[in-house]
């Protein structure tokens, strides 16, 4: 760990001020990712700005019938809030599929969005990594890449975004409310995280000095089916190999609307809205689900060790759609896949 200064911000303005003025500044919310990265010298902020004193701790009703999640609401408080469990059970389920009770108590909405990849090369400062040290190279491409991206990767980086919560937010068409030196703006979820391209060191489209204020959840049509299915190397407390979030509206055995997002397969939660239109008007049957899975994954590219993830993502997509359509979402408490 490198030496750093520590300060507590008391207002959003102040936080933005420091954050924008000092390029080496890092904001700290729950600290569950930032502090880990600092211990491994992956993050080496000159100043750590503790933002826990900012007034971003509430979940509030929105005029359009949606909900606003303050950036500092803990993952646990989101997952167990009755408004979330009733209106956005997909989000609750995805959060509960991640980490552990202790971590979810500390982790925040904003921190979860900005958690960094779990690529083991990224975490080891003694080896190259383009995301950590642009231009140094990507050993994962020719090395251990069993867990890496199958979609949207670039020659420079095959890391995945590891969040569970974000997969649900992507399916929910959330928007991110941010504020920076140039004011407040809203970013649609699909534009928030980015693909690695030529600059894998950048995870998001946030501008320098911008901080996350809240995540807005839009009003959903009533009685949507949902499921969050996470496949991992053990039954709990592991990042996903692949995960799938599905929201589906079925009337009279016809799919009216479907949102589908894949996790841990790309540098961001992976959504293909064109593909989703394939589902609309179709019957909720396996053959249809397979077709959309084919379509979602037809541009997938395997590295040496992760070809199985394409097949696994395909199967998980079909199953998750089946679960959502049948009204039997995956339980995060019972490890049996339903």
């Amino acid at each position: 760990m490198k030496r750093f200064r520590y300060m507590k911000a008391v207002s959003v303005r102040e936080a933005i001020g420091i954050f924008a003025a000092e390029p080496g500044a890092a904001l700290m919310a729950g600290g569950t990712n930032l502090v880990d990265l600092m211990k491994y010298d992956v993050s080496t902020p000159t100043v750590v700005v503790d933002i826990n004193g900012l007034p971003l701790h509430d979940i509030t009703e929105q005029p359009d019938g949606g909900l606003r999640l303050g950036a500092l609401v803990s993952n646990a408080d989101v997952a167990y809030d009755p408004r979330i469990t009733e209106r956005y059970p997909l989000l609750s389920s995805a959060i509960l599929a991640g980490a552990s009770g202790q971590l979810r108590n500390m982790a925040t909405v904003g921190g979860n969005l900005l958690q960094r990849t779990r690529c083991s090369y990224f975490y080891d400062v003694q080896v190259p990594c383009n995301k950590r040290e642009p231009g140094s190279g990507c050993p994962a491409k020719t090395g251990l890449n069993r867990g890496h991206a199958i979609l949207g990767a670039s020659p420079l980086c095959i890391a995945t975004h590891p969040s569970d919560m974000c997969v649900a937010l992507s399916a929910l068409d959330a928007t991110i409310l941010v504020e920076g030196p140039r004011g407040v703006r809203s970013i649609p979820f699909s534009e928030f995280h980015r693909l690695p391209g030529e600059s894998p060191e950048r995870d998001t489209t946030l501008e320098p000095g911008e901080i996350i204020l809240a995540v807005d959840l839009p009003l959903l049509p009533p009685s949507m089916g949902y499921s969050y299915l996470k496949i991992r190397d053990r039954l709990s407390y592991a990042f996903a190999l692949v995960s799938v979030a599905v929201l589906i509206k079925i009337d009279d055995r016809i799919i009216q609307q479907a949102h589908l997002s894949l996790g841990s397969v790309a540098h961001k939660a992976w959504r293909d809205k064109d593909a989703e239109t394939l589902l609309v008007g179709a019957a909720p049957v396996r053959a249809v689900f397979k077709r959309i899975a084919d379509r979602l994954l037809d541009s997938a590219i395997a590295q040496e060790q992760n070809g199985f993830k394409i097949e696994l993502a395909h199967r998980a997509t079909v199953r998750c759609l089946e679960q959502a359509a049948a009204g039997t979402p995956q339980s995060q408490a019972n490890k049996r896949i339903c």
Partner: protein
Amino acid sequence: MADAALNTGRPLLRVDGPLKVTGGAKYAAEYDAPDLVHGVIVPSSIARGRIVSVDTRAAQAFPGVLKIFTHENRPWGAHFSVFFKDPMGPPGKPFRPLLDGQVHFSGQPVALIVAESFEAARDAAALVRVSYHTEAHKTDLEKEAVHAYTPPRTRLGVPPTPKPTGDADRAFASSPVKVEATYRASPENHHPMELFASTVVWGADKTITVYDKTQSPKSVQIYLKAAFLLFGRRVRVVSPYVGGAFGLGLRPQQSVFLAMLAAKALKRSVRVVIPRDQMYTLGYRANAIQTVSLGADEDGHLHALKQEAIAATSQYEDAQDPMLFFSGLLYGCENVKLAYKLAKLDTISPCDMRAPGAATGMFALESAMDELAYATGRDPLDLRLENYIDYDQMEHRKMSSKALRDCYTQGADKFGWSARTAAPRSMRDGRDLIGWGMATGIWDAALSPLPARATVTLTADNRLEVTTSVTDIGTGTYTILSQLAADAMQLPMDRVTTRLGDSSLPYNPTQGGSWTASTAGSAVQAACEKLKDKLLKHSHRTDQASLTSDPSVEFVTLLNVAGKARMEATATITNLPFGKKFTSATHSAVFVEVRIDEELGAIRVTRVVSAIAAGRILNPLTAQSQIRGAAIMAIGKALHEDAASDHNLGRCMAHSFADYHIPSNADVFDLEVIFVKELDTEVSPIGTKGLGEIGSVAVAPAIANAVFHATGYRVRELPITIDRLLPGLPL
């Protein structure tokens, strides 16, 4: 023996339990000393080559840094001592940290930063710049296996691979049914909960107290005295509590070497802790490629058993473990041929890990037996019963006891094995494929290869103290020794205090090999007998016989009659390696249920029944904990653990628990333990066989076999992860 006992054989709670759950039990890194300074290791980033230069200027200038040790300035002495060797080390030249500029493995310590605070040392460590002349490394066992060789010298304490019997090649060739397959097991790291750490307290009065995480305070003491030429000083190594070690604490680790090096040079107390992300630099369970060939007749009767193993070792030592030692002991077969080979890699030396060798060797043999069951159409359990033997066919000796048949029947009964349908994929529950598998386990039952002592002391306040230098690594040693002593001296448990884990206590070599209960227990029992004799003699009582058989006698009255404040007795247990009339082993039969999603391959090990034959059970509670813990560890071996290396970098990349998976609570379902009755009067004076390893041996193959039964697809490589299983799950 056991039957009249008041405490022994009963499920008593751990005597050290309250201390452990209240934080009262102190571990090596928790001891403080005046002016204690802290050492942090800088690991190498390359696997093989030479250090060209170490730039320590920035680190040296860091506030709080006292001294930076590298191969260029390390003190003389330690490294050139001809005594530099640890008793448990394999043949070869042991790795000597900071000896010279050669790099032998990725993560090798290339500098030690010593600073006033841990934080300063850690932060300065990040500022050290090392430049290397890199040489091509070899870390891929798949590639190096072609250069495998039979180790020319066997390792002390590890039984050599048995010589062939009959003509296995010919018998195999002419067998009507043949099974031949190659099995792979990944490298594993020990990852005990407590980190490896050492606090060396430099005393003004020529005493050095070393709080070390080790399985053997005595070996560490002997090693330190020799390696650092500390003959004029009193070196005491103290390890009263050890938070797991699993074999990695059998050898003195880098932490204690480097802490002593710095302490001696600076004449100050020093602590060195190996952080979790450097754990892989201490040792690992060797990965191995094994080929098993079984020849049988149509009934499954074995005619030929061949097993060849190629296991990883380092460039500088021939690390060895009994991977194939047990393969000829389980099933009757006249033609057995075992070949144990090593392949050199640019890694640290592999190090014993719970059920060393056997856990990997038995995975291959017991998987092959399952394959033979299918090849002959026999039930896997029947096949094993068909080939049952009750003597040692390799050494032509009797077994001192072998209740394995009872393990089979009682385990099968408890599990409900008879309800199993034989065909793969024939049992299911909705989309879960259900698989039932079983396997046999075996491990050595022996006394420590080195003599061991224990002392018991009775004081006038009617308290008994039991002392011996061996550690309790979570095994329950404190408790069982107190139980044995309480019964021998006819005292209630709360009158007995056991002290362990201190080199100044009576010599008792190492907690390991499943020999501690038998060795330390026998020494304690013998010491108690001696003490009773002494008491009787001193009290001039003539009615000795009636006294020792009368449980109401309080020996303290004899102490009073003799007019003494205290009396002690010491006994030594020796294990003569020659002239043995019997072979002794612990056995197990393990039955496992797995449930696997038919499309997605997620595996749940929903039931494990371990039936164990291990002689006398001193405490069913701590004994069950041993077997359950071992089963969980073996679930890890079967499904999760892989200390995977990037062979381009020559570096293990599983540095944290995010990459190195072990079972979580959710991965552990029902674990049942049965101890079958087994009377053995030969194996040890107290009739025990030891329990540390046996629980680990058969669980991984039983899981692998259950996975086959569930899916019809044989995964011959551990861990069985989804990527390896998915090809066996057609839609």
